[in-house]
C-alpha cells in the first residue's frame, strides 16, 4: 500500500479515526506522517534499528580504511578475508590485532556482552586477576539477587566496594 499523501513510499503508519460515529482511515509513509505531525521521530528509530539488524556488517574499508584492509596479523599472517571464508581465527593475537572489526561481531554473538567474567586461570598475573575478580563478584551479586538471597547479596556488595576502593 502506498502513502496517501506522496503516493511514492510504502505506507507504514495506519491511523483509524472515529469522529461522531464516522470511521476514517489514513495510510501514510513515515516521512509524510512526521510532516503531518502524526508520528514522532521515535518511529523512525525502530525502522533504523530493524535495518541495522538486517544490514550487512560495515565493510573493512569503512572501519579500517583501504590501507588497513589488507592488514595481516604479524604473528600468524592471517587476514580478515581469510576470517570471512573460514570463520575461525589464525592465532590468539588476532583478537587484539583485529579488535575493531571483531568487537561488533562478538557483541552480537554474546547478547551485547564484551568482557569476560568467568573462570580465571591460576597463572594469571595479580593485577588483571583483580580486575576479573571484580567482574566475577558482580556476576555473583547478580546471581544472588536473582535467587533472592539478599544476605549474600549484601555481603558481596561490601566485598566489591572494599576491593574497588
Amino acid at each position: 500500500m502506498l502513502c496517501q499523501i506522496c503516493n511514492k513510499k510504502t505506507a507504514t503508519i495506519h491511523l483509524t479515526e472515529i469522529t461522531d460515529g464516522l470511521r476514517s482511515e489514513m495510510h501514510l509513509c513515515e516521512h509524510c506522517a512526521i510532516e503531518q505531525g502524526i508520528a514522532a521521530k521515535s518511529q523512525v528509530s525502530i525502522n533504523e534499528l530493524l535495518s541495522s539488524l538486517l544490514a550487512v556488517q560495515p565493510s573493512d574499508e569503512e572501519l579500517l580504511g583501504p590501507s588497513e584492509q589488507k592488514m595481516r596479523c604479524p604473528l600468524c599472517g592471517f587476514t580478515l578475508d581469510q576470517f570471512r571464508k573460514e570463520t575461525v581465527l589464525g592465532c590468539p593475537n588476532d583478537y587484539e590485532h583485529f579488535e575493531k572489526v571483531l568487537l561488533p561481531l562478538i557483541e552480537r554473538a554474546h547478547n551485547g556482552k564484551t568482557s569476560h567474567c568467568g573462570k580465571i586461570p591460576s597463572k594469571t598475573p595479580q593485577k588483571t586477576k583483580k580486575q576479573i575478580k571484580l567482574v566475577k563478584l558482580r556476576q555473583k551479586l547478580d546471581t544472588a539477587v536473582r535467587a533472592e538471597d539478599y544476605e549474600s547479596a549484601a555481603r558481596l556488595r561490601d566485598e566489591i566496594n572494599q576491593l574497588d576502593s
Partner: protein
Amino acid sequence: MKLTDLSNDINEWFSGSGPLSDIVVSSRIRLARNLAGYKFLSRCSTAEKSEILAKLKDILMSLDLSDKIFYISVDKASDLNRDFLVERHLISRHHAAGHGPRGVVIARREFFTAMINEEDHLRMQVLKPGSQLSKCYEQINHIDDVIEQKISFAYSPRFGYLTACPTNIGTAIRCSVMLHLPALKMTGQIDKFLHAAKDMSLAVRGLFGEGTEAASDLYQLSNQVTLGVSEETIVWEFEKNIIPEIVEYENAARKELLSKQVDILDDKISRAIALLQNAHLISSQEALFLLSHLRLGVNLYERMGAATPAIKRLRQLTGLRQNQSSSSTDKDKGLSIATINRLFMLTLPAHLQINYGKQLDPTHRDVLRAQIIRSALNQET
C-alpha cells in the same frame, strides 16, 4: 582397548538413571581450550599439530579419573570407526571429518572424553546421566585446574579463554542437556519449546545428529552465549530456570495425553509395539521414532502409574503383572528404560556394523536392526 569393548553396551550417561531422567536423559559440559604460544589449528603446520597433540595427550593420559583411560588416533582410524565414535558422542562430526594429526582421550566408562585438535587444540567434556549439570561442571572444572597446573592456555583478561571461533570465547563453555519430549510433540506444542529456546539464546539440535530430533523426540539443548556471564551462572540458569520449566511443560503434556487424548497415545504405543515386534526391515529413523513411543509408555507407567490398554500391553510384553507387590523389583525386570536406550544406541548404523564385524549395506543394516529389536522385545516376554 578395542572399540568392540564399548560397542556392545550403552554408556553410563545413557543408562536411564539420574535425577529427572524420564525427561532429562543426560547432561554434558564441554570446555574449549587452546595452548598459549601456539597458533590456532587453521594456521598450524602438520609438525605443530603433532607437537600439540603429543603435549596434550601426555597430560591427559596422566589424569587421575578413577577409571581406565585410553587414546584413539582419529586420523588413523577407519571411516567406520570414526562414525562409531561420533554416534557414541566421543568425538564430534567436525573432528571425524578433520585433517592432520588428531585424537581423542576417553575414560573407559565414557563420562570423560577429550578431543585433541578439533576446532580448538583441546575440547573436553564430562557427561552424566539425568539432570546433573552442576556435578558435570564440578568435575570438568577440576580436570581443567589439574591440566592448567602443567600447561598454560591462551587467555586474555578482556575476552577470557581465547578460541578459534569468536562465538566460543570467554568461558568457552557449552552446557547441554539431552531431553526426551515426546508428549510435547504429540500434543502439538513442540514449537512452543523451540521458540522459547530461541528467545533464551539456546541452541537446539538432535541427539543423534542433525535432523534426528524430529524422529526420536530427543533434543539437545545448549547455551550459545559464552562471554560476559560466568560458568556458574550459565549452569545455574539451566538448573533453576530452564530445565524445571521444560520438565513442567513435558509433564503437563503427558498428563494431558493421559486425561484427554488416551486414544492418540495408545495408538502410538500400540503401533510401536506391533511394528517393532514384527517388522523385518527397520530404518534407523523409523527405529528412533518407534522406540521413542515405547520409552514414553514405560515412563508413563513407572513415573505416573498410568495403565491405559496400550501401556498394559507394554507391561505384558515385558512379562510383568500390574498387581505384583513390590514396585521396585517390578522395575528391575522386563522392558526397562535402560533396555530401550540400549536399543536406541545399538541399532545406530556404525554400532550395528562394528558389532557385526564388517561393513553392511543399508538393506542389510535394516534387517539386522529389526532382528536385534525383535529379539530384545521377545526375550523379555
